[in-house]
């Protein structure tokens, strides 16, 4: 069966390009609650518990938790080369923007269609923040 591809416009917050397998979370994410060396989500009650966010294109509603821990969390993942390749969110807030800025991971929001309707974990997603474009290849 031929895989289908769809391209959506988006709004750039932090520029750059990143591609990888999609990982969708319906719950907000705190990067501090992942293993900084592997990218595995440690937060026991989280829907992504035990999943690995390393090198993924992460689709999630928003960030959460205090600024210091959130920023340090993503920063440590990046130091170990296990940060996500791109971030697609519904609500960007200051702390998440700062986090993505520091580790130079593209961050976009306002996809022209609801990303939670279109993107499934395992799809292959290219985020071209500079061109305000997200391309999804369904698995």
């Amino acid at each position, binding site marked *: 069966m031929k895989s289908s591809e769809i391209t959506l416009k988006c*709004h*750039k*917050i*932090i520029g750059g390009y990143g591609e990888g397998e999609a990982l969708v979370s319906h719950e907000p994410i705190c990067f501090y609650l992942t293993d900084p060396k592997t990218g595995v989500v440690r937060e026991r009650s989280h829907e992504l518990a035990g999943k690995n966010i390393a090198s993924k294109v992460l689709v999630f509603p928003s960030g959460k938790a*205090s*600024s*210091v821990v959130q*920023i*340090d969390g*993503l*920063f*440590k993942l990046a*130091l170990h080369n296990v940060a996500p390749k791109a971030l697609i969110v519904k609500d*960007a*807030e*200051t*702390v998440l*923007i*700062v*986090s993505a*800025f*520091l580790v130079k991971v593209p961050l976009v*929001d306002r996809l022209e269609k609801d990303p939670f309707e279109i993107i499934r974990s395992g799809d292959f997603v290219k985020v071209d923040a500079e061109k305000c474009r997200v391309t999804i290849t369904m698995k």
Partner: protein
Amino acid sequence: MYLTKEEERILAGEFGEGTRKALELLVAIGDAYDAEKMIPISRAHAASSGQEGDLYFVELLADGGARCRVPTSTNPVYDIGYFHRLFDDIPEDEAEVARRVMEAYKQVGAILSWSCIPYMAENIPLYSENVAFSESSATPYVNSVIGARTNREAAQSALAAGVIGKVPEYGLLIRENRKGTHLVEVEASLKDEFDYTLLGYYVGKRVGYGIPVLTGISRQPSTEEFINFCAMSNVSGAISMFYMPRFTVEASTVEEAFQGDFSGDRITVTDRELKECYEELQTTSGQIDFVMLGCPHYTLKQLGDVARLLNGKKIHDGVAFWVCTSATGKVLAERNGYVSVIEKAGGRVVVDTCIDEPCWIAYKNKVGMTDSPKCAYYRRFKEAMVARLQDCVEAAIRGRWG
């Protein structure tokens, strides 16, 4: 977002790489919030933390030649000289990060306040000023108690704002966004500073993210009561602003606080809810190894309270007794004789220091007490029970709680 000629020149690198990076971050935030333009601020407070993400950005700016254009104060890290003389088990790599962070903030020309209550002495906003204050306990204080305007900033966005002297205009800088979201009817009897600690903890938990409007407050809260409410409502929630009509400056009535549009949740707080919060914070009892006070930093008044409670007493041999305050707070407390009373009883008063720092590693497996849920939350200890100051002091003397 509209950019001035000067801002475009900054982004083109004409003012150096550090300044360019600072504005680049602010523009990204402005774009995300659809801000129309940048507006001037009078001051900033960067919640420096001595962690790697903090270090990376402040060094990026410092090495790139950036300097703060408006007064920009700093949050506590730890008193490196003092703690390394006392303890030899502080991890060297973490100590090195703290050292470099403190040096880099000096290089960018920040006010080296190392205090989480800078609005008390080193960097005091005025009513209706636009500012950029990070530190989750300082943000609501300057918005609500002082009536200045700030968004909930990260350390980095606040530092960038200090360097540029501007912030993107969005969120709580705009009057319409400063309206109440939750009505909190306080029926509990609020007797002392610790009751405001419990009230903040409960309101943060119930509201989560929003602007609570509190009614039923029967007398003017003290400075310290406000500080506690601000700090603890940001342990259990994210409260960047609140109203206590008549006692906070911006709205004199409930209607005004809601800008005539109340459709949100209604929450009632009685003595029972506060008692339940208190019980939730009693995680264990028995022998204690330490008492930790000053999260947020104790004011001069609170240092006086500690001195009065300890006057002529002796802290139990097995208990380490710590009080964190600002450098200015300690200078005055020494002058007033509070520090010598506390030290004579066996306690220590330390400056520049936060609970969430590697200097406390000696207590990693210890059990102790604090009057602050925020202190307990940081998990630098095996267990930290939360109780009133008087109970903490009594437990320190007896060597046990409960």
